[in-house]
């Protein structure tokens, strides 16, 4: 059985930020010659010349293997995944492995799919699969060369297994060879293992940090950073998006025990205190009059009416094909349906926080940074510092679901602004922890944008699709951000339409157009982004068409998946495992959905029973997944379970609404997530694949909503087209 040392003093994270000697001299595993290294890292490396230090792996004299994770681990398991790739090529022992998060350094640690250092889009393993295996293979080659030199044996006769290097009668640990390995030439080319040689890939390595997470996660999360002499700050932000303080009376707050300073900043009024409770109490004592002249004043009802009117008007056409209008005109029957998806908060369990120490010349940050490049650049800009004087220490994060990947770095900007205002006012450099309370988080925007869809789809006399016309209304997440060029083309933000225009259903005549209304509510990606709503529409409409055509929902979908064998494959597998088409227990109703997102394929079949009060209880979900080579099957199962739970949570009761521009929800009592009583039993079946690995953090989320909705239709005869279910007494 694989296990990590039970009582290891530093099982993760604290090992070192050392060993960059190779990088300092420009010899960095063949991949990163000429990289610019932060000077402090070089200085630290110089003190550790006995380590084999490379960008992604350090082999330490104490025999530990430190994997430098360039991706934030917010629960999705990226740290263990990256360590698995290195350890496999290196044939390291599990007990040797440590994981540390990379410093902020775009050139070395960029996401190869984004070009910036950052985590998202279910890309952590997809973009690192070759890079981290190469890092492990490079370290292996250098350990081999060192052993060969030391023992006078041909490198071809040196073997490595179980963390031990052997040759002839000799053997040594990695640690014993680390210094000599560091002196070896970096190989320009390394040969990676073949899949038959893998020892950890595909074997469900246990998560490196889980023992700590059962003992309080002490030292892991940004929220738990407790620096010497540190203070806590909370900010009173305007109740309406875009409002500004008109006048502030902070005298009562300043008189409170523990409150040290009150700072007016562009984002609001920041109360700095000795502890969190004092800061919160101090903020409650502020008397602020807000200026709403530039604020978003529309409520949800007004926005819905506006969006509904846009459904009647042609938008910007995109990704159409064939002759949808002509085919619809010739259809023997058509279905038209409107859908509404509310704003959603991420409501990750660890409230947002950033700790910053700024002394006027340099600044250091501690938090679960998800877009280090953007955070770094914004911090430098706000503080007027050269980027080389900014350091970001990425911590583990207590969930994100997109919330920490702030495309505008508004959290970093706010923390930096507060740190600067504090230093300007007091002249004392002190660590400040900015926290969002739960109310700040739920109430504070950066939501999954509200969307409406209208679909008209036709069927011909044989029950085949005859034209599909689709209109989408919603704010574009990436419009106006640093990511605009990635996603916005010809006025259409493709994060709003992913899953429709690029559907692999073979629908030959499809028209799609889009409206992106201007609304003053900040929006952001939310686990699986556009697929959160597009999959719901596509998969409930396919179900409806199958029914109108008098065809089985699985068979109907398969007929349109002849060009997408992997999507067809997961649908068939889920159907087989769930016993699709066979009798179900009395009172159980079954629904299916399948969706491709982030280059992975997930089919889900949900068994739903209605409770006595008419609410829907999802009892069991059978999933089939194809995400390429399964690096860590148990983590794939965990991510599908969790992704499905996150999606189920959103369709049951989650909804952010506004009255006259002010958000109505504040905390979990009025923004109600899934609880254990809502959770189904879940089976996850993984397709054995040799394709390159793709994402798994998000793809479990999109299919659950439509699978449940399709089951609820069978139970009630009602097609739920406006979410959440709670609007209809179903949750």
């Amino acid at each position, binding site marked *: 059985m694989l296990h990590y040392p039970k009582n290891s003093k530093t099982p993760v994270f604290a090992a070192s930020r050392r060993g960059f000697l190779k990088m300092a001299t420009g010899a960095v595993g063949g991949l990163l010659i000429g990289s610019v290294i932060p000077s402090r890292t070089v200085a630290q490396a110089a003190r550790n010349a006995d380590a084999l230090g490379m960008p992604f792996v350090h082999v330490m004299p104490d025999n530990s293997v430190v994997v430098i994770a360039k991706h934030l681990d*917010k*629960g*999705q*398991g990226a740290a263990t995944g990256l360590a698995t790739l290195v350890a496999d090529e290196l044939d390291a022992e599990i007990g040797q492995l440590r994981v540390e998060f990379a410093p902020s350094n775009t050139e070395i640690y960029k996401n190869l799919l984004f070009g910036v250092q950052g985590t998202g889009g279910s890309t952590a393993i997809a973009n690192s699969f070759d890079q981290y295996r190469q890092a492990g293979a490079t370290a292996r080659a250098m350990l081999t060369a060192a052993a060969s030199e030391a023992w006078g044996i041909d490198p071809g006769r040196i073997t490595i297994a179980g963390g031990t290097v052997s040759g002839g009668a000799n053997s040594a640990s990695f640690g014993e060879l680390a210094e000599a390995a560091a002196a070896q030439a970096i190989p320009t080319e390394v040969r990676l293992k073949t899949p038959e040689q893998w020892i950890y890939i595909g074997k469900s390595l246990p*998560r490196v*940090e*889980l*023992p*700590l*997470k*059962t*003992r*309080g*996660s*002490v*030292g*892991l*999360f940004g*929220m*738990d950073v*407790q620096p010497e002499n540190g203070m*806590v700050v909370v900010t009173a932000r305007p109740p309406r998006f875009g409002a500004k303080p008109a006048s502030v009376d902070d005298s009562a707050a300043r008189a409170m*025990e523990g409150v040290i300073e009150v700072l007016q900043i562009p984002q609001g009024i920041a109360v700095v205190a*000795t*502890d*969190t*409770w004092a800061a*919160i109490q101090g903020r409650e004592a502020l008397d602020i009059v807000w200026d709403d002249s530039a604020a978003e004043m529309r409520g949800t009802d007004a926005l819905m009416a506006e969006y509904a009117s846009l459904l009647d008007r042609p938008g910007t056409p995109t990704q159409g094909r064939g002759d949808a209008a002509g085919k619809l005109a010739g259809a023997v029957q058509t279905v038209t349906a409107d859908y509404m998806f509310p704003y959603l908060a991420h*409501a*990750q*369990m*660890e*409230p947002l926080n950033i700790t910053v120490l700024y002394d006027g010349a340099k600044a250091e940050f501690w938090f679960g940074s998800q877009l280090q490049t953007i955070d770094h650049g914004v911090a430098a800009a706000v503080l007027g510092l050269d980027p080389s004087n900014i350091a970001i220490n990425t911590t*583990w*994060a*207590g*969930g994100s*679901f997109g919330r920490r990947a702030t495309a505008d770095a508004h959290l970093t900007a706010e923390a930096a602004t507060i740190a600067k205002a504090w230093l300007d006012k007091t002249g004392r450099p002190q660590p400040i922890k900015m926290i969002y*309370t*739960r*109310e700040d988080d739920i109430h504070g925007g950066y939501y999954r944008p509200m969307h409406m869809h209208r679909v008209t789809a036709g069927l011909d006399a044989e029950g085949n699709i005859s034209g599909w016309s689709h209109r989408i209304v919603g704010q574009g997440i990436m419009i106006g951000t640093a990511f605009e060029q990635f996603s916005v083309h010809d006025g259409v933000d493709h994060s709003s339409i992913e899953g429709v225009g690029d559907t692999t259903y073979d629908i030959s005549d499809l028209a799609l157009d889009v409206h992106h209304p201007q609304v003053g509510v900040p929006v952001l990606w939310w686990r699986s982004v556009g697929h959160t709503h597009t999959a719901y529409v596509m998969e409930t409409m396919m179900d409806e068409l199958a029914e109108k055509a008098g065809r089985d929902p699985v068979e109907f979908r398969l007929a349109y998946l002849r060009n997408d064998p992997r999507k067809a494959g997961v649908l068939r597998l889920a159907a087989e495992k769930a016993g699709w088409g066979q009798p179900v227990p009395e009172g159980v109703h079954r629904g299916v959905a399948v969706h491709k997102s982030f280059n992975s394929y997930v089919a889900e079949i949900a068994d739903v029973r209605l409770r006595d009060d008419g609410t829907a209880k999802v009892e069991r979900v059978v999933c089939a997944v194809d995400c390429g080579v399964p690096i860590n099957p*148990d*983590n794939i199962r*965990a991510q599908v*379970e*969790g992704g499905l*739970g*996150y999606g189920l*949570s959103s369709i049951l009761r989650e909804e952010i609404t506004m009255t006259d521009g002010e958000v109505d929800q504040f*905390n*979990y*009592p009025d923004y109600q*997530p899934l*609880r*254990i*009583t809502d*959770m*189904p*039993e*879940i089976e996850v079946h993984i397709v054995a694949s040799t394709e390159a690995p793709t994402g798994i953090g998000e793809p479990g989320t999109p299919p659950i909503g439509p699978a449940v909705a399709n089951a609820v239709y069978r139970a009630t005869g009602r097609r739920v087209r406006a979410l959440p279910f709670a609007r209809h007494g179903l949750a």
Partner: protein
Amino acid sequence: MVKVKLNGMDTELDISPDMPLLWALRDKLKMTGTKFGCGVASCGACTVHIDGVATRSCQTFVGDLEGAEITTIEGVDSPAAQAIQAAWVELQVPQCGYCQSGQIMSASALLSETPQPTDEDIDAAMEGNICRCASYARIRRAIHRAAEIMEA
């Protein structure tokens, strides 16, 4: 000055009586294993044991704790807690892990009281603990597994 027994140690809390225990632990005593999630006793992340009962520390005030026995995730080591922690690792329950201090405190209190809980017992004891990663199915299995470990 409030005298309590904290993780088995006699401790004097020289802390404002109206401060919630959560913030006394985290900010005054620098014990960060107990997590802040909502502040309104709605998510369970801040759960500790007070006289053996799973209690939300964000709505428990220092001034009400004279003589109380307080156990936090840093100090919990009952047979039930050890079984829960072992089962949590065995079944790889946590994902982000932020809620898990509270989940483990709730689950270990349940198991101490009810060594062989039914699914209904688990629902009742655990419904107050939110996990946004939705590790609930594994939590349920791990509680049953911990019950087996304890019985063995």
